[in-house]
């Protein structure tokens, strides 16, 4: 992979998205530089998830441009995806595999990971001994933690997280906040859809209200 | 009469012709109906929108 010349920077200009014959949002714009998190809020149905999925390139925009490191995302979607870790509504874990196996196989598509690295990431999210259980035997909160460990293990400069703290207890929410802050301090970029207050300093937090 | 008998093939020629003509006309009807329906829906929407704007 070529070393990226420009610093991480995500921007959306004049974004319009339609579902069927209904405009979900129109004329949205934002910019997030390295070390900054964009918090997306809005009532249910305002299009938070749709916006996040559109930024990932999963949903076609009616109009508008998304730029990563100053270049059009759609010009080279593969290169953009290689730098993107997305935590969606459906967590994307196989219920018949253990947490360690899930990370090994899924993140293993993107970069070299061994079981030690997977274990380390799962310890970071506080999963402990449960990591050798099948996902099907885990609680919703534990599954979220595994999914978050996958984001960590991807080691990507851009995180797009959809409700990362849902189903998490207070300790879990605080943990996510800490890890997010560390990601930003390391020069990462994040877009997070959540109603929870994020424990981030004001200079590294932008807000986008939909609806 | 000779023409209608089609040299003994009337039972095959005429149903073929009739079916084809029927489908040709039906397609005209369907096409116009679908275009009219789309127009009606669009009109209704615009009327609704104007009502909402006013």
């Amino acid at each position: 992979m070529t070393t990226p010349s420009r610093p991480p920077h995500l921007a959306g200009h004049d974004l319009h998205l339609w579902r069927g014959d209904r405009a979900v949002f129109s004329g949205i714009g934002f910019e997030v530089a390295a070390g900054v998190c964009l918090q997306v809020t809005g009532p249910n149905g305002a299009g938070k998830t749709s916006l996040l999925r559109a930024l990932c390139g999963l949903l076609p925009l009616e109009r508008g441009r998304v730029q990563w490191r100053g270049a059009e995302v759609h010009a080279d979607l593969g290169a953009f995806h290689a730098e993107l870790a997305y935590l969606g509504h459906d967590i994307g874990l196989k219920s018949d595999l253990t947490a360690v196996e899930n990370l090994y196989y899924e993140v293993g598509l993107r970069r070299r990971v061994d079981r030690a690295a997977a274990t380390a990431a799962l310890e970071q999210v506080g999963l402990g001994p449960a990591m050798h259980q099948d996902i099907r035997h885990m609680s919703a909160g534990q599954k979220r933690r595994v999914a978050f460990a996958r984001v960590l293990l991807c080691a990507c400069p851009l995180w797009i997280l959809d409700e990362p703290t849902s189903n998490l207890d207070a300790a879990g929410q605080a943990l996510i906040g800490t890890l997010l802050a560390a990601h930003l301090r390391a020069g990462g970029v994040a877009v997070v859809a959540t109603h929870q207050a994020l424990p981030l300093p004001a200079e590294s937090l932008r807000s986008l209200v939909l609806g | 009469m000779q023409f209608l008998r089609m040299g003994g093939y009337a039972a095959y020629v005429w149903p073929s012709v009739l079916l084809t003509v029927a489908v040709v006309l039906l397609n005209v009807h369907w096409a116009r109906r679908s275009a009219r329906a789309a127009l009606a829906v669009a009109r209704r929407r615009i009327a609704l929108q104007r009502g909402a704007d006013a």
Partner: protein
Amino acid sequence: MAWTWFHRFGSPPYFYRVAGTLTPWFAWPAGVLCVAGLVAGLALAPPDYQQGDGFRIIYVHAPAAWLSLMVYTVMAVSAAVGLIWRMPVAHALSAACPVIGASFTFVALVTGSLWGRPMWGTFWEWDPRLTSELLLLFLYLGYMWIRSAIEDTARADRASAVLAIVGVVNVPIIHYSVLWWNSLHQAPSVMKLGRPTMPASMLVPLLMMLLGFTLYFAALLLVRARGELLRRERSTRWVAEVIGGAGP
């Protein structure tokens, strides 16, 4: 030059207007040609020396079979254009096709078996052309059903476009495999005339019918595509401008 033309036709309001103007220019010649061709074919052309008057079914069977294939091609090509360049006009054109194509495929099948009855002695013979038509009908049905199964129009457009493209790659393969299969089993084929060259009195009505049906399809396509375009664009400003004047 060609590209400006392409882009202008890609613009929905322009297409909507031009399609409306063009429709009668296709429809009237189509009507005249079809009536004249049918009269000439059924009444004026001489009977075939082997099949007698039975061959006259060709004047409806061949144009229907021609449409069944041409409509599929138009459908697939416009679907591909719509998928690649994200043009609503192309998707509207593609969505206008399946009903027309499926109905003429059906006509080609029925007239083909009516033609076959006196020649083979049965209504259905696994003739390669009829078998291909039957498979084409199934392809149309799949396309129509996948469209209706997806509620969101934009998604239905794109998913059915993938199917149409896969189908159009497959149609020749299916056709030649059926021909190959048929050559092993030697079912008699009567869907061609005995003589290698047709006299003009037989050929001209046939050509008139083929041209007439083509123009007829063009007219139908434009009428339907206008409607489909309104369905896709009904929330945009040009629709209000175009039809607002006539409305309340």
